[in-house]
């Protein structure tokens, strides 16, 4: 059994917008190990959601996946297979928790019916069997038996998110792409969901792609962290190492911007400048206008990702 | 001077968007055509439509492309002059209806509470009344004049737009930038008319234009039933006479077809513009990030 359950190579997804071509995902390559949680962090507009959608080929016009390979389990290249075969992969091998999904639950269907629907749509099994499986899945995600026939509006935010997670796990996938699964939730509920995902990962032997804009969440949930800026990967590495000693200046700035209670220093550190324009990104290294260590080379030449310390950094400081 | 006005009009984002929209353009061209016809009616009309220029019921000929009506008046001239009534009624009813509807909708939506409850029930009743019989009754009672027709149609027609404006106001009222206006000390009047109104203007415009069609058709209908203003040439009146004088029986199709087609064409044109404006209004409401 191969150690890499997912290999992404040279993925490029662009959007056609009125202002021009938005280079949302620009030549991204990384691997997901079996059984690991890879956290993908970046700020708004950096392309992380587009990346998640691209992996399952869920990009619609005006977006387009221009090139790249996404190899699942060393055998299937998702970008090259037919629609028929893609249907066998979606939800059954790789599923997704979409951003804001908890607010997109069908308001006129009971939650158990929605999980049943997910099962029946992807696996042509008997409805009674599907109901049994759905109930088990909902229980697994922490929904008590007496709430399974509720409608979404009767549930709190945290419970709705559990339903969404149950739907994503309904067909026993091996990989789950979770796009901002805790963003709209209060901090206590958020902790509950994070704990749930960690437990489920262990129980069901999942591999998780955890997309978020909040690096502090990744510190407690992910094994490795991947940092994205302006559609490009700037750093990948083990969580502990990245927290202790981030290499890329953007990663350093990002982690320094986290405001935590009970910190010794009340210093307020931010990264100067503004988020980059993905239609006309800065030349050379896309982070150079905001980088405290920028050199002349950085304005001219784009730094290539290089192996560093069991991970990857794309920065001329380490070239 | 006019060049400056023209460039200002063309620079307006709504106009620009309209010109970019195909059906909007088509509608606009047709409407401008009819406006031109109405404005220059006296000049381009071959004859005075009230003048008797030949034997009644004369069929079409080179000098009278549409023939003569039951009294001997030139139908083409009638047609050209008829555009005036349709346009005047159309614009006036839409304008006054909108004026009333927007005011009521804004007040009802912004203040809420019991004012809103009372007004909404009032609008519900108004919209539930059978409009056509009521319009006929009122028109018959008040007497046939253009003013009365405009009056009646305006009174009956403001309910729909009031509802739309009320709904928009209700939602806008909750938005942060409206709340911030309250916080900086703006009076309710200022907030309603200087902040909320401009923000819902595109929708109001779209609705108003769509209502012009309804007004034109209503006027035509009233005139066809004989309740129109006999002192003015209107397409509806033409149809009234064509019908009551058995035009089809006499084989004078063009007498019926010409005004009928004009009504349909003008009505459709406004529909096209209104529909285009609706499309423009909606993406504007949808935020562009």
């Amino acid at each position, binding site marked *: 059994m191969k150690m890499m359950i997912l290999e992404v190579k040279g993925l490029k997804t662009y959007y056609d917008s009125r202002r021009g071509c938005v280079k949302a995902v620009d030549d991204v390559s990384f691997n997901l190990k079996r059984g690991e949680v890879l956290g993908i962090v970046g700020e708004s507009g950096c392309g992380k959601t587009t990346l998640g959608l691209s992996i399952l080929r869920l990009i619609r016009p005006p977006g387009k996946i221009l090139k790249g390979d996404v190899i699942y389990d060393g055998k299937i290249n998702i970008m090259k297979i037919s629609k028929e075969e893609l249907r066998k992969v979606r939800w059954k091998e790789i599923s997704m928790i979409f951003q804001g999904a908890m607010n997109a639950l069908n308001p006129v269907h009971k939650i158990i019916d929605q999980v049943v629907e997910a099962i029946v749509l992807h696996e042509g099994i008997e409805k009674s069997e599907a109901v049994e499986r759905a109930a088990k899945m909902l229980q697994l995600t922490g929904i008590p038996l007496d709430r399974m026939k509720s409608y979404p509006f009767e549930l709190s935010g945290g419970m709705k998110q559990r339903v969404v997670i149950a739907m994503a796990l309904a067909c026993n996938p091996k990989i789950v792409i979770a796009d901002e699964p805790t963003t709209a939730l209060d901090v206590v509920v958020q902790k509950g969901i994070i704990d749930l995902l960690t437990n489920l990962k262990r129980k069901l032997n999942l591999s998780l792609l955890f997309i978020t804009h909040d690096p*502090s969440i990744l510190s407690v949930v992910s094994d490795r962290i991947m940092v994205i800026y302006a559609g490009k990967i700037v750093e990948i590495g083990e969580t502990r190492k990245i*927290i202790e000693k981030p290499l890329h200046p953007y990663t350093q700035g990002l982690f320094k911007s*986290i405001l935590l209670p009970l910190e010794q220093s009340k210093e307020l550190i*931010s990264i100067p400048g*503004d988020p980059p324009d993905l239609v006309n990104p800065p030349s050379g290294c896309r982070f150079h206008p905001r980088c405290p260590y920028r050199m002349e080379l950085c304005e001219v030449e784009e730094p290539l990702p290089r192996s560093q310390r069991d991970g990857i950094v794309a920065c001329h400081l380490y070239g | 001077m006019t060049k400056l006005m023209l460039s200002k009009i063309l620079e307006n984002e709504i106009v620009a968007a309209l010109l970019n929209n195909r059906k909007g353009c088509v509608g606009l061209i047709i409407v401008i055509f009819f406006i031109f016809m109405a404005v220059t009616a006296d000049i381009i009309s071959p004859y005075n439509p009230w003048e008797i220029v030949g034997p009644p019921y004369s069929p079409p000929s080179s000098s009278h492309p549409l023939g003569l009506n039951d009294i001997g008046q030139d139908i083409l001239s009638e047609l050209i002059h008829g555009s005036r009534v349709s346009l005047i009624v159309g614009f006036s009813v839409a304008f006054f209806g909108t004026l009333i509807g927007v005011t009521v909708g804004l007040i009802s939506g912004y203040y809420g509470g019991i004012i809103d409850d009372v007004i909404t029930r009032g609008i519900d009743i108004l919209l539930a009344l059978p409009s056509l019989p009521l319009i006929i009754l009122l028109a018959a009672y008040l007497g046939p004049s253009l003013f009365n027709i405009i009056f009646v149609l305006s009174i009956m027609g403001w309910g729909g737009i009031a509802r739309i404006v009320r709904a928009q106001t209700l939602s806008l009222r909750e938005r942060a930038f409206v709340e911030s*206006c309250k916080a*900086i000390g703006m009076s309710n009047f200022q907030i309603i008319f200087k902040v909320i109104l401009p923000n819902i203007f595109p929708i109001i415009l779209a609705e108003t234009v769509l209502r012009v069609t309804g007004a034109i058709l209503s006027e035509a209908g009233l005139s066809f039933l004989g309740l129109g203003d006999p002192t003015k040439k209107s397409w509806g009146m033409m149809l009234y006479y064509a019908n009551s004088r058995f035009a089809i029986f006499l084989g004078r199709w063009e007498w019926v077809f010409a005004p009928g087609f004009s009504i349909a064409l003008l009505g459709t044109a406004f529909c096209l513009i209104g529909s285009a404006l609706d499309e423009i209004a909606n993406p504007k409401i949808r935020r562009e990030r």
Partner: protein
Amino acid sequence: MKLSEVLVVVKNLKKYFPLKRGFFSRTYVRAVDDISFEIKRGEIFCLAGESGCGKTTTGRLLLRLIKPTSGKIFFEGEDLMKLKGNDLKNFRRKAQIIFQDPFESLNPREKVIDAITKPLEIHKIIKDKNDKIEYAHNLLRSVDLTPTEYFLEKYPHQLSGGQRQRVAIARAISLKPKFIVADEPVSMLDLSIRAGILRLLIDLKEKLKLTYLFITHDLGVAWHIADRIAIMYLGEIVELGSVKEVLSTPLHPYTQLLISSVPNPRNPFTTNIDIEHFAQIEIPSAVNPPSGCKFHNRCPKKVMKCTMERPILKEQAPNHFVSCHMYS
């Protein structure tokens, strides 16, 4: 006239929102359920809690954007609800608000220059166009939106989130207020931008001698900016004191739960096992809150008394107040 040390006094404030349910029965959402506190001149007072705790409603009440169901609010010694006409307009000059959503709080059809000078026009401080431009330049400079000429003519959708928020701040300070309610001003901004906005707020506080009511759900932000903090739960204040004390030695079980739920990159492997189980239980609704202490069904330290009697905010340590039966 002696300037009082206390700017805002809130006494037994209640706000119940009616839910139109039965014809005869009237249920209410008890958004704010009897709270009392004071805000001192020149301090940053933080209202913290999760969604639905009533902090946003409290902020609106303090600015008289909504009217309380009962209770009193005093601003500079005057009863807020009794203000009328010119007095009310004067109050509006002294008390302003910054909203959470930097896009929503600006009129999408207004240019920056119009948005930030509108308060000045409403209060007739600006006389003519030149006045307006000069004020606009100064305001943009005070919020670090430079070069100012570049930003004057822009529309909100042409600016980034952080820039929009700076415009909103410029508008709030245009009337030189004394008191600003900041309702989650950085929650919707990117992480790397937040510190900049917070620094700006602190700078402006020093320069313009402002007092803030800072509303947030993020304890990290509260730690870095606030002087004192009040933790709210289901419409009540459960703990109140200096930010340092409340967050480093939390007395109320809910405060303890909140702090231990914050994911901590610097120390990712500490968990409070005591709290784990109770974190799973859902927050009760504000329509039918539990009897007695509203937190009792989630509290690991619950006793019989907690289900029957509502605890009162009492001073437990110097200037550190808790509302919990454990301490009475």
